[in-house]
């Protein structure tokens, strides 16, 4: 029962440069971010299987969750 977390761009710096992490299901995305050391305030978008979801979302077994850093506006 695992979730693949992919930190995008500068967020990799907070997980020692890892491109993907395998995490257990159960927690919300926000809780996962806190657990691996990525500040949730720096995450602009959470994409679960490429669809935008909120940080309170509970990823399911087999989901791929990309977290995207804040972006630069227009």
């Amino acid at each position: 029962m695992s979730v693949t977390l992919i930190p995008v761009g500068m967020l990799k710096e907070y997980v020692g440069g890892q491109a993907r992490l395998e995490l257990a299901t159960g927690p919300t995305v926000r809780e996962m971010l806190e657990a691996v050391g990525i500040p949730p305030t720096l995450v602009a978008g959470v994409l679960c299987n490429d669809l935008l979801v909120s940080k309170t979302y509970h990823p399911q077994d087999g989901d791929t969750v990309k977290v995207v850093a804040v972006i630069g506006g227009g």
Partner: protein
Amino acid sequence: MLYGYAGQILRVDLTRGVITKEPTPERVMRNFLGARGLGAYLLWTEVPHGADPLGPQNKLFISPGPLSGTLFPGAGKMDFTTKSPLTGGYAGASMGGMLTAEIKYAGYDSIILEGISPRPVYLYIDDDTVELRDATPYWGMGSFALEKRLKDELGEEFQIATIGPAGENLVKYACINHDYGRQAGRGGVGTVMGVKKVKAIAVRGSKGIPIADMDEFTRVAKAAYRACKEADGYEAWTRYGTMMVTSWCDENGALPTRNFRSGSFEQGANIYAPVFREKIVVTDKGCFGCPTPCGKYAHSKKHNIYVEGPEYETNGMLGSDLALGDIEDIARANQLCDELGLDTISTGGCIAWAMECYEKGILNQEQTGGLDLRFGNAQAVFALIERIAHREGWLGNLLAEGVKQAAAQVGQGSEKWAIHVKGMEQSAYDTHSATSMLLAYMTADVGAHHNRAWAITYDLAVGRDKVVPEKAAKVIELQHIRPLMDTLGCCRLQWVELGMSLDFYAPAMTALTGVTYSWQDLLHISERIWNLTRMYWVREVAGFGRVWDAPPPRFVEEPAVGGVTDGKLTSPEAAQQMLDYYYQQRGWDANGIPTSETLQRLGLAELVRVMP
């Protein structure tokens, strides 16, 4: 041979109707690169000191950059430079779309519009054939309507830039429109085109761009292109564009709400990216050479309109800042501004100020011309946008002058909630509790615009209220990198949003031009341009100095209301301390003026000594 450039500058004397061509000066391109840099140089050297922004002495410089029209990712950007009718200082506005490539292919590194035409005209360019054609039948037309009309008349392959009624009526923040939804938005570049009576520019080009080392340039550009396409954030970025930041701003107290009184909007979830995508987006839309299209073309069933957008800035300034919580209403306001030729950011800032005046009883319904100007009243917003563009009624005419002038006229303390720096309305980031971003707005070279340095991420990473020299250093670093993209004629978003490496730029410029550039060389030129624009303010604005870098009072005197920044503000002392750090690191004196040593170091001493 000047590789990487078209080799000619097109000069259009509108007063006399005389069109001439001159060689692109190689030394200037080496020192200022092109686009924003060339515009700043030409503004300094060609527009005389004290010129009226709306007079015949002011000029409009329309310039692609060296990378424009090439294979390099995002090579669809260009620059419009002029003396701003909104601020009285430097104005440089960047625009995407297809026009920049077409100008370059027609053979020009810049188009200089000078003087004032005695009648409405449009500039027709078909390679070497350049004519001023009668635009009397088009005067009064909306931007999109005219673009369509000219494409129908001239051919779809012509690229068209237009002004709307706002530019004709000299609204101080009129924009230039192109490609049915791309704008040179800020500082009143459309106003200057309007006063010159140039309704449109139509360009078709068929020439090539000389490239010093084609094989190497192709290799670098393709590698950069591939890096964008393979970026982890590619799907999210192309699906949602800049709108993705809306929820993040709301969550972090940065989404301007009710004239920047709050950084969080109680109806925010209604205007987030997924709602936008699902409810109104029809298709994605990119500029020339863009591998990562951020444009979202939308259709509102409610209003039966099509519009490119809203993108984030418009969503903030015409949405939450006016308390509009329906994405279709925001799209309608966006479409009205585009068609009428108004900068959405400044328009939102002016209307938000008026709404607060109305709420406080400073403006009554007689002064608003019968409009019930409560926050959240979409119909009143639509009506007021029309009135601003046509300078209709007392309030429409007042707001057409920009928020600084409007507040100065109305008084009664309303200057306190006129959210601007140097007379330019602030774009869509609340800066009650973000000292880097506040400094970025205070020091941006056109006024309170985010595109020079978007530092709010840094605030959140290191502590949003911290007042430390590292924050000034970050703002300066960004003020050199981001405007450099506007100088090269390419889009910054491939780097900003998808993390495309900055290591691609110097090799690309070296292969393109045959001149060996390091990244540090490019940054040095960008710093030179930044200081030249600063000196332009010094030259043109009597008493220019530190006081002109003051933050909007709201962020240093009134705490934010609601959201995660509830009760927070930046103290005036903290804002001044940030300025001290900034001036010291820039090599400017305590009044914010570049020292002679700094000008010498940047190779500007001789240029700025001679004031035209």
